[in-house]
């Protein structure tokens, strides 16, 4: 879609669209900084950096799964016994570390603006596929931020107010879910954690491989 604009006269003051745009760009930069820090934290705590290969290797964690198995008696007069067997398997540390992604969830931007000038822009849209022409009229407002007459005194530690200029910015940061890519990796790891089937006769200490070992009798 091609866009052409037609502005025909001069104006003065701050463009309200630019003002909102600057705030949104600042929030995007803040989100980026938070994401970078979170990634750094993950790399430092859950990975080992190999300087020779320049690869981050995941730190693996050994988990223990203990279950009771009834061992049948060897002879008719003997009693069956219960043995606890422990299976060990490894999972990446990142799958259980309590990471939360801190992000900016809500931005409220309140300001009082005195309109000093305005303009009308004619915007022509040319659709690439349909070859149709559309013309819209856009109103642009320009002005300056003013203090409302009933402004209350502002405490120095106020989290949502800047100065006494009639501008109020309220930001709420919340723990948001991890990124979809990282959650997918964790899901893949979780789904592949199935118990290993041993193809030798069960319930005997001789059949245990390196993953299964008797704990107590």
């Amino acid at each position, binding site marked *: 879609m091609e866009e052409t604009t037609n502005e025909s006269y001069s104006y003065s003051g701050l463009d309200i669209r630019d003002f909102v745009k600057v705030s949104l760009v600042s929030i995007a930069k803040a989100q980026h900084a938070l994401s970078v*820090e979170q990634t750094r*934290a993950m790399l*430092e*705590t*859950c990975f080992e950096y190999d300087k020779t290969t320049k690869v981050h290797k995941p*730190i693996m*964690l*050994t*988990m*223990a*799964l*203990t*279950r*009771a198995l009834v061992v049948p008696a060897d002879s008719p007069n003997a009693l069956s016994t219960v043995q606890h067997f422990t*299976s*060990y398997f490894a999972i990446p*540390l990142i799958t*259980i*570390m*309590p990471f939360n992604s801190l992000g900016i969830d809500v931005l409220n931007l309140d300001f009082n603006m005195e309109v000093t000038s305005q303009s009308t822009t004619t915007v022509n849209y040319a659709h690439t596929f349909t070859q149709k022409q559309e013309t819209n009229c856009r109103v642009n407002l320009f002005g300056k931020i003013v203090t409302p007459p009933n402004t209350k005194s502002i405490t120095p530690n106020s989290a949502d107010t800047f100065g006494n200029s009639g501008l109020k910015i309220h930001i709420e940061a919340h723990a948001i879910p991890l990124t979809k890519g990282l959650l997918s990796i964790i899901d893949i790891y*979780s789904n592949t*954690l*199935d*118990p290993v089937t041993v193809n030798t006769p069960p319930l005997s200490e001789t059949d245990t491989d390196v993953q299964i070992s008797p704990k107590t009798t």
Partner: protein
Amino acid sequence: MQEQSIPCPVCQTKIPFDVHALLRGVAFTCPSCFASIGIAQEALPTVNDAMQKLEELKKNIHSAKKSSS
């Protein structure tokens, strides 16, 4: 807060668990087949090291926040 659970590797019953307790070394038992799952004792130092690093990072962020304000 949503309760976390993992499927039991033996019977697929959901085992509710608390990740912080799990990282401290607590083992959680399946309510159906009584299989217990937890971090192996020899892996606990690895977890402690990682948690300490994470706490240090949090402290650094807090101190940076205080110095900037």
